[in-house]
């Protein structure tokens, strides 16, 4: 099932979607912790985190569906998916839309560490295999940071304006 180049491409896909999340998570907490103003824009960063993470899961699912199109048979899925456990783990991110998982932000961090670990493994591997793979990983990691920042900022903006309009309606 693990077919060299295809497997590596799928690993890059996973890195691109999820490995940037831990850093975005940590920075969001530090920024939100430093703000003194309640109900400011940054205070919406923390509740936005699990939503943004679940949204990444949806986007990842969309990519997999696009890759599998038009044959969604089990045989094709089996032949296409090189890291079935990692892919299932990635798709579990969608569950963070559910309130029961959403309330515990730390779970998103733990979940995403599985994908950050892929970079760590390549960082260690470079001592024996050279830094070409790390070069690739870091490029994809940069895009991952950008993607994670964008999804979080979009959702935070939506929450902020939703809250703002709700508050205005009440008053």
């Amino acid at each position: 099932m693990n077919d060299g180049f295809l497997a590596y491409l799928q690993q890059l896909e996973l890195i691109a979607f999820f490995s940037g999340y831990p850093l975005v998570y940590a920075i969001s907490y530090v920024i939100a912790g430093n703000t003194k103003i309640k109900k400011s824009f940054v205070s919406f960063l923390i509740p936005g985190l699990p939503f943004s993470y679940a949204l990444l899961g949806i986007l990842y699912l969309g990519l997999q569906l696009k890759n599998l199109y038009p044959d969604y048979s089990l045989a094709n899925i089996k032949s296409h998916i090189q890291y079935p456990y990692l892919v299932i783990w990635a798709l579990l991110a969608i569950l963070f839309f559910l309130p029961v998982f959403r309330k515990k932000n730390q779970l998103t961090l733990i979940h995403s560490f599985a994908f950050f670990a892929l970079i760590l493994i390549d960082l260690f591997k470079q001592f024996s295999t050279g830094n070409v793979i790390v070069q690739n990983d870091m490029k994809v990691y940069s895009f991952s940071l950008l993607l994670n920042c964008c999804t979080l900022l979009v959702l935070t903006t939506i929450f902020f304006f939703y809250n703002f309009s709700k508050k205005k309606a009440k008053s």
Partner: protein
Amino acid sequence: MKRFNNKLLMIILLIISGYGIISSCTHKDQVLPAAVSTAVKITRGNHIHLPGLTAGDTTQWKFDKVHSAVNWSTPFLEVGADLTGKFNQFGVADLSNNTKLQNYVTAAQPLPDTSWAFYENQPDKTHFAGYVQINQVNTGEPARDGGCLITTLATTKIVPGTQNLTVTNVAQIKTTSVTFDPAGNDYIVVFNFTWQGGLAAPITESITGKLTYVPEAVVPAGTYSDFGLTLAFQINKADFGIVSTETADKIDIVINANFNNK
């Protein structure tokens, strides 16, 4: 405490990310791969094909008239889609010796098709001469072919059982130079095209065409080999005194010749 933990996490992640970026840095600009070559890849073999008439001698190549054709096309009424046709009788024989220009009472081509030689890698040695019988024009419309076209092409009707190789009824070609085509695997052929047409006497024009060699290969049945030559060129019918608004002046001619060593 919690904030401290998040700060610590952020610092650790930044250190790891920074280390990744620094360790992946080569301090060199990435060199772009070399551009794809746009040069035409020319490959030529060393085939030499010489004519002969001895059946069964595989070193001698025979012109396969039955599987060859002289086709022409020109826009109908000078503006429309192409009007196409071919000549039913033609040969690879040199008629430049005028004594050969006569009527032959025979059903087949009267002259041996041996006025040619082909050297794949020595085009200066390649040469050929050939002819078509103009009244054997075939557009698939018998009334036209045996009627108005005969008048337009200034020739005479077919006499059954006779091969009309008289001066008014043949158009001839004879190569003067064959060179490699620098743009591809083909050859540039300069040849004399001689035809009387609607004029009082034949004229000879020097014309340039493109010759394509289809390399020798054993036929699927595996009993003999075959190779092909395709010559494409253009003539201006007005140069030969042909007046007709039915077709354009420029006429494209493609000769597909097959040879075998049966």
